[in-house]
């Protein structure tokens, strides 16, 4: 009950602090830009197809799917930073302004605070990632007339990646100050991205050391690898065959072991956040 009370307060805070409003504005701006771009692309594609008498309709579909894929990449990017900024002050910020001391002077256990905050910031972030994905996919269907093959697994994997960042952010917020936690999380995001780039560079150039280094990094912060896993399902086999190893999108189906690892990772991050908070002097 206490957990739900605290989670409810963080949700209401997100809503009332205009965080949601700001997000909606940014997201609408992004969607409008994306869909306008998609519309221009589509018009050009259709013109060309007519010009060359539609020698290969497959090429046009491929380009449309790639447009959707790029859009989803930006969705994941926005949702990732949303997860970081929604969670970075959850513990540290409220300790700094003493409002959490007011909560903890009540018959509330610290794990309940962490569980409530995890539930609150996790829900906001996952909801945002899911809704923005659905909006982009629906818009693409209208403008471009295509829908990626594996929408459900793709969104679930993106959500899991967002939860990874959410958990890690809560851990950072339980350990240190808001600003430090924010910087650490942006660096963690960058690390995950670098790991992905290294992996694809290693695979592309057949340099095993690079590929291994990249794969080890994805164990450290699995968020970007989860985006790549999700993006696999957003592509048709033809797209994957054409692309080959690349730094932005995954061309190999994710292995089950890694997905289990990522799910456990999220749980461990939340538990560690609880332990760190338990030990912290307020």
């Amino acid at each position, binding site marked *: 009950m*206490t957990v739900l009370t605290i989670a409810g307060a963080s949700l209401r805070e997100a809503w009332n602090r205009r965080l949601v409003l700001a997000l909606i504005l940014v997201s609408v701006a992004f969607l409008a830009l994306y869909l306008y771009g998609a519309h221009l692309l589509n018009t050009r594609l259709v013109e060309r197809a007519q010009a060359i008498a539609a020698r290969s309709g497959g090429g046009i579909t491929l380009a449309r799917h790639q447009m959707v894929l790029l859009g989803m990449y930006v969705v994941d990017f926005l949702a990732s930073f949303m997860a970081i900024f929604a969670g970075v002050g959850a513990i540290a910020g409220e300790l700094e302004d003493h409002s959490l001391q007011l909560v*903890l002077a009540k018959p509330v256990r610290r794990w309940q605070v962490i569980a409530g905050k995890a539930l609150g910031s996790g829900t906001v972030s996952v909801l945002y990632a899911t809704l923005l994905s659905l909006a982009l996919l629906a818009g693409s269907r209208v403008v471009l007339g295509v829908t990626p093959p594996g929408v459900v697994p793709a969104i679930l994997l993106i959500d899991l990646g967002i939860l990874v960042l959410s958990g890690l952010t809560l851990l950072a917020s339980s350990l240190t100050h808001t600003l430090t936690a924010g910087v650490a999380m942006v660096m963690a995001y960058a690390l995950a991205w670098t790991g992905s780039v290294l992996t694809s560079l290693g695979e592309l150039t057949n340099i095993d050391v690079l590929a291994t280094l990249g794969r080890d990094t994805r164990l450290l912060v699995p968020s970007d690898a989860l985006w790549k896993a999700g993006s696999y399902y957003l592509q048709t086999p033809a797209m994957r065959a054409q692309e080959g190893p690349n730094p932005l999108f995954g061309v190999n189906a994710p292995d089950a072991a890694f997905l289990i690892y990522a799910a456990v990772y999220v749980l461990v991050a939340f538990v560690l956040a609880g332990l760190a908070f338990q030990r912290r002097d307020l």
Partner: protein
Amino acid sequence: MVSDAPAPNVIDVHGLVKRYGRRTAVDGLDLAVGAGEVFGFLGPNGAGKTTTVRMLLGLARPSAGGGSLLGRPLGDPEARRQVGYLPENVHFPGWFTGLGFLRYHGALYGLPGREVDARAGEALERLGLAGRGGDHLRGYSHGMLQRLGLAQALLNRPKLVFLDEPTSALDPRGRREVRELLDELRSQGTTVFLNSHLLSEVERTCDRVAIVADGRTRYLGPTRPDDGSNELDVSLDRAPDGLERVLAGVATVTSRRGGRLRLRLAAAGAAPDVARRLIDAGARLQSLTPVRRELEDLFLELTGARAEETASEASDARVPA
């Protein structure tokens, strides 16, 4: 330091120590507060007051020592069910309404929704915020927020309430209202642990005080110690001739300005003898008052130059984790 409060004590701690790295904030502090007392917790900035309260509430873990709060070991969340707390400089999220804020904190106490609503309405009215419960806190003045904080601290009808500078943002009328509130709490048997720099307020409201300095208890006893009462202030219309001789054996004159005298008694309880001798000698006695030591004198004496040294430092510095 032995407590003269009746057992069982609501707060009972011994040898409490808190170290942050090499800095010792609390250094073997003893404290005993009895049920129903209005207790003043005093000390210069940086004396370890805030850290002590944090340890009592389980927000910080003692490096050594320990004790009990409402009969339960320090840090036990169940004890906090009967505790109210208003820290200083707390941030009130502006997006809450007054009523919403109280509902949230009532829910954290585990109170059922209907009960919270009834008590919140009562508390708002009691603290002069009736009709403002629906307003967002961003529109509240500093004093209104402090009243709301007090309402929050009393929502669970606590047995023990910790108030940290509860009147700092209030005007004289507000201060008086808080004083009346404290009296009301006392009459209901609530123990109040008051942390304040306003010694005159403490003198008016508290039964007993502790004065801490450098993380240790320097004084634990009645708010107005009586050990200064061997001095008298005497006011005469006309001083008799040979005053020293008149008072010989019962008192000596320590200062004199016209008809105003400060006398030191030869023995406690000699005030009536002084009065009789002065009247017998033909003096017209207007007033005769025992000189009581002010809390401020005691405070300054016990905390010494440290008070001035630390007053300019950052208030009650705490080392974040």
